[in-house]
């Protein structure tokens, strides 16, 4: 009996020591590394919200136990180049470049928007234009694209013109890139362009946060649904980092801070996703000669 008690006491003590050792070992095993996690962001969402990115970075740093750096560039291409040059670990890019560089990227997560990992491309015209019913009504007009590497802001209208048998290079009198979906909305709203192609998710989100701007535009046509611009990792990213990042992103709806951030993104969450989601975009790429 006595022995049993003393044994039990010994065991408790040993367990305590062991626990301390494990805790210590864990601390040694996962120190905050000097090299931060580098995440590239593009204009697939309202990327000019510096305050939001700050909060998100803080959230990710807490979850990942690592320093996080967001990198912003004015074009998709620059982010893609940085990713392929391994200057970035992760990036939130458009489905179009993902399709193009699928071999060199790993799909990390796909945002869930309105219950599914899909979105549309909107064709918009100024609110004052009540006649235009399709892209054909914009012949010889000024058209605003968002980015030449954007699916919704470039590839979709290009495909539409191609599908309609139009010369997609000379259909518009003039076209230009604004390098961001929100700026396409601005260009159309101000009458600089007679029409524009915009990410439907961005337009919908803008309609919530800046309804005055979107009210000056009219959505003429919504495309079929495509895979939502995905979070990707460069090929060489460490597996554990990849898993951790994936867990953090997909776990965002599980805590208050994460939910608040998602709400500001106007998203439901991030899902596992699969590459088949982007087959639709791949079809467009194949359909357009030289696309």
């Amino acid at each position, binding site marked *: 009996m006595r022995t049993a008690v003393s044994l039990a006491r010994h065991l408790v003590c040993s367990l305590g020591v062991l626990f301390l050792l494990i805790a210590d070992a864990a601390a040694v095993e996962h120190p905050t590394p000097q090299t931060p996690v580098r995440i590239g962001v593009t204009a697939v969402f309202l990327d000019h919200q510096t305050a939001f990115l700050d909060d998100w970075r803080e959230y990710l740093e807490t979850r990942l136990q690592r320093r996080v750096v967001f990198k912003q560039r004015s074009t998709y291409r620059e982010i893609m180049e940085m990713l392929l040059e391994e200057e970035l670990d992760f990036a939130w890019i458009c489905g179009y470049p993902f399709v193009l560089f699928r071999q060199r990227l790993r799909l990390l997560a796909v945002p869930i928007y309105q219950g599914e990992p899909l979105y549309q491309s909107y064709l918009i015209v100024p609110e004052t234009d009540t006649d235009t019913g399709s892209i054909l009504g914009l012949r010889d007009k*000024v058209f605003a694209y968002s980015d030449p590497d954007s699916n919704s802001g470039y590839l979709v209208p290009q495909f539409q013109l191609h599908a309609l048998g139009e010369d997609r290079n000379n259909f518009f*009198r*003039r076209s*230009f*890139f*604004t390098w961001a979906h929100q700026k396409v909305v601005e260009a159309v709203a*101000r*009458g*600089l362009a007679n029409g524009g192609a915009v990410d439907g998710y961005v337009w919908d989100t803008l309609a919530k946060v800046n309804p005055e701007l979107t009210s000056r535009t009219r959505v003429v046509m919504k495309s079929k649904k495509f895979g939502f611009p995905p979070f990707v990792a460069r090929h060489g990213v460490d597996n554990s980092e990849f898993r951790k990042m994936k867990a953090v992103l997909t776990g965002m709806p599980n805590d208050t801070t994460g939910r608040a951030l998602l709400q500001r993104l106007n998203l439901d969450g991030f899902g596992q996703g699969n590459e088949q989601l982007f087959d639709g975009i791949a079809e467009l790429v194949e359909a357009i000669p030289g696309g």
Partner: protein
Amino acid sequence: MLSDLSLRYKVPLRISLLILIVALAVTVSLLARSYLMFKQDLFISSENMGRIVARTLTTALLHDDVWKAYEIINAPFSVDSKEAALQADTVIVLDKSERVYVSTAPRQYPMLSDPALKDDEIAILKQKLSQHDPTSRVTIEMPGLGNIYVVTPIDSDGVLLGRLVMLYSHEIYIDRFLAFVRQAAMTAVLIIVLLLPFGVYWGQRLSAPLVELSKSMGQVGSSIPQTPDSRIFKGGDEIGQLGAQFARMIEQLRDKEALEKQMVVSDRLAAIGRFTAGIAHEINNPLGGLLNATNTLQRHGAQDPLTCKTVSLLERGLLQIKATVAALLVEAKPEVHPVTHQDIEDTRTLVMPAAQKKSARLDWVNGIHQPANVPSTYVRQILINLLLNSIDAVPNHGRISCEVSTTDGVLRIATYNEGEQINNHDLEHLFEPFASGTESGRGLGLWVTYQIVNTLNGSIEVSSAEDDTQFVVTLPLQQAA
């Protein structure tokens, strides 16, 4: 109308007008200058702005990046407040073929359109621009144009890529200018409000002496005005001199008037003197005969008592006439010796009983210590006449004083009494015979005194105030032969 207005109003009005004119002139010149400066400011800052924007646009145009160009030209508009900077109303970038590349007002100036087709002003502007070297900066402001156009070339390595046209509304500096006008006007009003009271005060101060002088001048002729208040005419400037001169003139007028009055009196007295002398002479001749006749009759005529009594009566009457006539004539007395201290004292003894009768006090100053060369008989007669008149004039227990002295070659006799004031009319006729016939005298005392003073080439002055009547006789001392 205005020229008839009194200086009292005219001078302050003119000073006020001057203040107004100066305030307005200063304000207007300041405004004119600031108007030009505002405009120049606009030109300089807009040209600078044009240069900066044009340089920034070069890359966008080279890369054919419409959106970037749009964002560049829109950047200045992100500042909300129009007050903060002189801001263009519209910015247009024209391409090489003078079409709109991009503009801040895309609905008004759509991309690729020819702006001159829709906008007449731009058409005029383009015509104007064609006269200039396309690579030069031009600022165009024309009466016909509603805006100011600042045109800056956009070039790369000397190759013209396009032109930056900035439209400024005139209102932009007119508004600022009007704000300045309001401020300047308020300052001017403030200055005027502060200065006007001073102007009015100075004006009145300046005009007051002239107004006073004019008023006094106006009285000259009808009467002699009061000497002007010396406080108004202080200082040695022209107005002060004028005041002093005017005061002198008034004094001279007074002297002249007094002299004239005196001359009238003297003339009258001289005429009366001649007249009485004539009558006395005419009376004296037969009178001497009559007295001789009565004398003869008393000595050699009938001795009956009635005749004797009648002749004696005649003689007494004739002697009285002689005495009266003698009193009218101042005859040269044979007894002539210089007046001495004792002569004066004798006179005092003579008048003392009369003074004592009225219980009057007689203050006596006898300043003759050496014989003075003036006939003593005359002096005594003058002194007796004046003193008896004084005693007669004072009330009971009144005071009389007498002072006799010699100074600077003259004998001076001065008497004072506390009698009633002699009125002006009486003063004028004081020395005429029988002028002031009183119960006690015949009214010849002063007449005789005057005659004696005249005979001795002296002067007699009288002044009378309340309880102070004064006679002053001055007689020149005669040179010892």
